[in-house]
């Protein structure tokens, strides 16, 4: 009944439709612009939500999220430059199709497959999340702490080697430490405030996210450009007329699309794996299982369909743990969690119970945003490419000004802008030395949840670690977290052994 009411509410609300259109367009634009990630795009859209009610704000943000994942494929196909990391495998066949004069068809395939992958994952999200919510209603504080720890293992996907993994772990620890600033919820003692009243309430997520994601990237881009390391996009005139594949062509690759959608959904649910891994894995699986495996990499539709379906299917997957457990599994979903918290809401089982209309409105909004992508992607591809011609001084200056407005507009407090500025500088150094900013944000967002639940669990158990943690679910989750954190080291060790052999 709730879902029918949500469908009716969203479908008959012109503001929701307007926000979905704006969100998808902005997301595609951010995704298409190299140097603006989906997380950064979602963070930059925050000031646009300040005067919206929570349902509209979240509909706008999930639309940006869906559009952003697709947007990266435009530059990947037209210029061989992935606008976002998750569009990298799309370049393998997409750009080759452009060279063969089939760029329009590659774009059409990317649009249809992204929309299908996204819409499919949203439907699955609507089915899976309530089941997870039922299980989560029986969670103890220790279980919650363990689930949040599992969310932190998302950092496993953010580092691509033992050293990078160590950097990701350090980033997440710094985020956890930042979450401890302010008055301690249990003892009421101020921690690490150094006498500053501005820090008594803790460090707010929003200025940190905006500063670290957006401002830090602008400073990094300036550095790259001044060092002459930035390769400009050769924006010679190209025919950007989108052409959808025929029904027969589409049906020929139906199994690739379905497999990729399932892979994307599954990988999206796992913390840390995300859209990039989903796109690479599905490209590999499609290549291995295809009748035309030798043609992969030469410019075939299947090579575009697989990664594009999977990376958009991961969006619905990534929203499952966020909506049902309140645990974000990626940088972008961490920013979306920040919006929930900004409105005083904690996603999780209680949100499903107390505010089902909100949850289902997000699901419905996300579904329609994916459908809208078909029309907006087709109509707007040429326009989005025109935006790539904007000089960086326009983009960089606008990003900084939006960051300032976003931080100030939160509570009309200049202290928030100073916090944003500090994290712009920290974000710059983190990017420069390959520390994942998303890990810091994830630590900051999950820090309080872990600390409060862990301490609550220890208090309930009479301050006994064994009583608190030695429960089947808790211990399984902790072991799974440890395994995910150690996995890159095990993989590196195994590859060393293989090389030695």
């Amino acid at each position: 009944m709730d879902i029918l009411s949500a469908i009716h509410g969203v479908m008959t609300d012109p503001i929701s439709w307007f926000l979905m259109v704006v969100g998808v367009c902005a997301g595609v634009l951010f995704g298409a612009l190299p140097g603006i990630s989906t997380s950064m795009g979602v963070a930059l859209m925050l000031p646009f939500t300040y005067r919206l009610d929570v349902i509209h704000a979240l509909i706008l943000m999930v639309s940006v999220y869906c559009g952003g994942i697709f947007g990266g494929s435009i530059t990947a196909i037209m210029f061989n430059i992935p606008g976002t990391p998750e569009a990298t495998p799309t370049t393998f066949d997409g750009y080759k199709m452009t060279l063969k004069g089939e760029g329009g068809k590659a774009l059409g395939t990317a649009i249809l497959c992204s929309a299908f992958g996204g819409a499919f994952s949203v439907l699955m999200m609507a089915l899976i999340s309530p089941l997870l919510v039922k299980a989560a209603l029986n969670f103890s504080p220790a279980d919650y702490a363990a689930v949040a720890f599992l969310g932190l293992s998302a950092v496993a996907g953010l580092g691509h080697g033992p050293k990078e993994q160590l950097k990701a772990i350090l980033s997440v620890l710094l985020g956890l430490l930042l979450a401890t600033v302010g008055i301690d919820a249990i003892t009421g003692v101020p921690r690490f405030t150094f006498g500053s009243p501005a820090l008594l309430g803790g460090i707010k997520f929003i200025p940190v996210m905006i500063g670290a994601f957006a401002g830090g990237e602008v400073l990094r881009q300036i550095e790259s450009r001044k060092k002459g390391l930035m390769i400009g996009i050769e924006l010679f005139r190209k025919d950007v007329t989108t052409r959808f594949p025929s029904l027969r062509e589409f049906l020929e690759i139906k199994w690739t699309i379905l497999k990729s959608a399932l892979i994307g959904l599954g990988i999206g649910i796992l913390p840390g794996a995300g859209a990039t891994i989903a796109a690479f894995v599905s490209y590999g699986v499609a290549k291995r299982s295809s009748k035309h495996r030798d043609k992969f990499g030469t410019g075939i539709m299947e090579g575009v369909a697989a990664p594009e379906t999977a990376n958009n299917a991961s969006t619905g997957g990534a929203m499952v743990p966020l909506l049902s457990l309140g645990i974000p599994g990626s940088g972008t979903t961490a920013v979306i969690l920040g919006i929930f918290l900004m409105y005083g809401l904690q996603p999780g089982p209680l949100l499903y119970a107390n505010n089902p209309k909100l949850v289902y409105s997000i699901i419905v909004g996300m579904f329609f945003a994916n459908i809208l992508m078909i029309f907006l992607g087709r109509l707007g591809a040429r326009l989005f490419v025109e935006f790539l011609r904007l000089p960086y001084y326009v983009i960089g200056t606008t990003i900084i000004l939006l960051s300032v407005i976003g931080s100030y507009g939160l509570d009309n407090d200049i202290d928030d802008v100073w916090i944003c500025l500090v994290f712009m500088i920290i974000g710059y150094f983190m990017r420069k030395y390959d520390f994942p900013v998303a890990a810091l944000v994830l630590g900051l967002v999950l820090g309080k949840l872990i600390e409060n639940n862990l301490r609550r669990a220890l208090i309930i158990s009479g301050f006994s670690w064994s009583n608190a943690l030695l429960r089947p679910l808790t211990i399984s989750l902790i072991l799974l977290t440890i395994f995910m954190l150690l996995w890159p080291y095990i993989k590196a060790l195994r590859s060393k052994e293989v090389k030695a052999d």
Partner: protein
Amino acid sequence: MGDLIFEISVLGIAIFLYAAGVTLDSKNPISVMRPYWWPKMILILILIASFALILTSVRELWVYRRPREASKKAWPWLLAQTVNIILLVALQNLLGFLVSAIIFSIVSSFIIDGKLKAVHIFISFAIPFGLTLFFGSVMGVVLPRGVGFLRELSFLIY
């Protein structure tokens, strides 16, 4: 070398905060009930992780002797842009959002593009005006208005 300095800085900050935590922590017999119990656990892990990272970086520096970075110096521009952002924030209350944003945009255009032509000036006015009108008037975000006549003037715009 820069990454090593960054990692040493993180280690230094962690040691400082740990010392602060130890000094400030209460003497509650039950450790969980001490306010710095959790931060100290995190700080210990930070100390271990940053120490391991420093060792890895030193080893890499020693073994591989990485080539020097590109010769073109970017740091004066970065420093200039950082000061520009600091001024943007610091002048908000005095000059208001619009005026400080225009000054910021002009300097930022010069820093990023390395030149200042009429088009840069035009865009440096257009972006702050556009953002101020949209957020100040349409979205209802209360942007800083400045003092004196700038404040009066701001009410005519947003």
